[in-house]
């Protein structure tokens, strides 16, 4: 088992050496943050299929039963509890990022929610404007302008990037919670923590899966956009400038506005007919 872990770490490190070398420069195109880099696509697609199968057979039914039985309010309290356990790791990363304000907020959140929020089940800290901003070692690397490298799908772990994989190894060592638990307890804790994440995204996963034309392509794009928004060197919280795609999206003189309206009406009629003939499932 130890050998497998070392082998896995070695593979991750090899991937990452490429990623770490790709430091972002000031002159780098700011839109590169939105461009998906996926040189390991064949491997990633296999892992994605493997993970989706495991999820469908094992995880999804458990999550479905949990959501079906437990009402939203207690579910949210359990989620708060796990969020609170994530604060110590966030604090370590706030310190590594030399962000004093965030560190004091995180420390305040943890103390308030642990002692006044019944061990974190209630999020009292948000009432004092101490808002949650989970930080991982991946975010810290991003803060120091290490680019995300390439998209990567790992068995069981799921979506990440080459930088994110290093981040996950870093989190194992940096998380104060892990130092208080035995190895077996760490495994249980990691499983429960990931299950809590999976529960939060249950509806999004279901909707995305149903409506995708290429589920892998959709998840990959959504993941890269999500981490790009968190990347400090990407144009975070800045509107996308679509003008860079103007050439690609030039008006098509072959399709007039009347034809476009007809297409739309036709689509509505077709849809209506399918609804009337119960061709669509409810």
């Amino acid at each position, binding site marked *: 088992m130890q050998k497998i872990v070392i082998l896995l770490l070695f593979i991750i490190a090899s991937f990452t050496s490429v990623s770490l070398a790709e430091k972002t420069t000031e002159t780098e195109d700011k839109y590169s943050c939105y461009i998906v880099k996926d040189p390991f696509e064949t491997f990633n697609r296999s892992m994605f299929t493997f993970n989706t199968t495991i999820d469908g057979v094992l995880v999804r039914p458990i999550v479905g039963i949990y959501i079906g039985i437990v009402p939203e309010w207690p579910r*949210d309290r359990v989620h708060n509890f796990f969020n609170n356990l994530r604060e110590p790791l966030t604090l370590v990363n706030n310190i590594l990022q030399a962000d004093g304000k965030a560190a004091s907020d995180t420390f305040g959140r943890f103390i308030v929610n642990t002692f006044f929020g019944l061990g974190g089940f209630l999020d009292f800290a948000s009432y004092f404007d101490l808002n949650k901003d989970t930080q991982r070692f991946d975010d810290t690397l991003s803060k120091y302008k290490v680019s995300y490298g390439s998209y990567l799908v790992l068995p069981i772990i799921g979506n990440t990037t080459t930088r994110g994989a290093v981040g996950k190894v870093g989190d194992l060592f940096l998380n104060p919670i892990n130092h208080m638990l035995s190895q077996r307890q760490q495994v249980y804790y990691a499983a429960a923590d990931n299950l809590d994440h999976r529960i939060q995204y249950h509806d999004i996963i279901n909707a995305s899966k149903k*409506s995708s*034309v290429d589920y892998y392509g959709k998840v990959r*794009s959504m993941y890269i956009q999500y981490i790009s928004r968190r990347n400090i060197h990407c144009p975070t919280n800045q509107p*996308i400038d679509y003008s860079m795609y103007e050439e*690609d999206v030039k008006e098509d003189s072959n399709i007039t506005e009347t034809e476009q309206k007809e297409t*739309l009406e036709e*689509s*509505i009629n*077709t849809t209506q007919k399918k609804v009337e003939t119960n061709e669509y499932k409810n």
Partner: protein
Amino acid sequence: MNTKIKFILLVAISMLMTISSSANETEVKKFVAGFADDIISIVKHRSATNNSKADKLFRIVTSTFDTEWMGRFALGRDYRKFSSSEKSKYHKLYNLYLRNTYFPILMKYEDESYSVNRVTQTGTNLYNISVVIVRPGRSPIDLDYTVKQKGNRYKMLDMSIEGVSTVFTQKSEFGSVLSRNGVEGLFESLSRAQINGT
């Protein structure tokens, strides 16, 4: 004398531009708020069936969004390689695809309220509107709408949820299918998705 007139003219023009820009921003804000109100009123209509809600939502979404632009954006340069019959078929399938991807998301906003936070002009006649969906007892959701002004009309080009853009996601997804399975593969996937999505 000439310098003074030039100066006064410049000040007047810049004032007019500021007033016009702020008037546009107010109009854009109104346009987005109107769209949000329409969606909420349909979704909250408890006696209506899911199918009738879906149809109403579809009509609003397709009349508010520039679906033709979105369809072209999703394909990028590959769109130009399509024949006119392929383009026509693609747009039909794309509209149905939108119906089935937008509908389930919007139907969930039953108990939520919203606030329009910020309007930013990002290009010529192009605006970004930040909206926050407020959910009782839960974390708020950030939405960003991109709106293009066409004459005195406005059309939405994109909607981003928590920073994830609809058209960028489609661009990546459709591009991936096109490169792996070709045009017919894309049509087949779009047809399958519109049935699965409902």
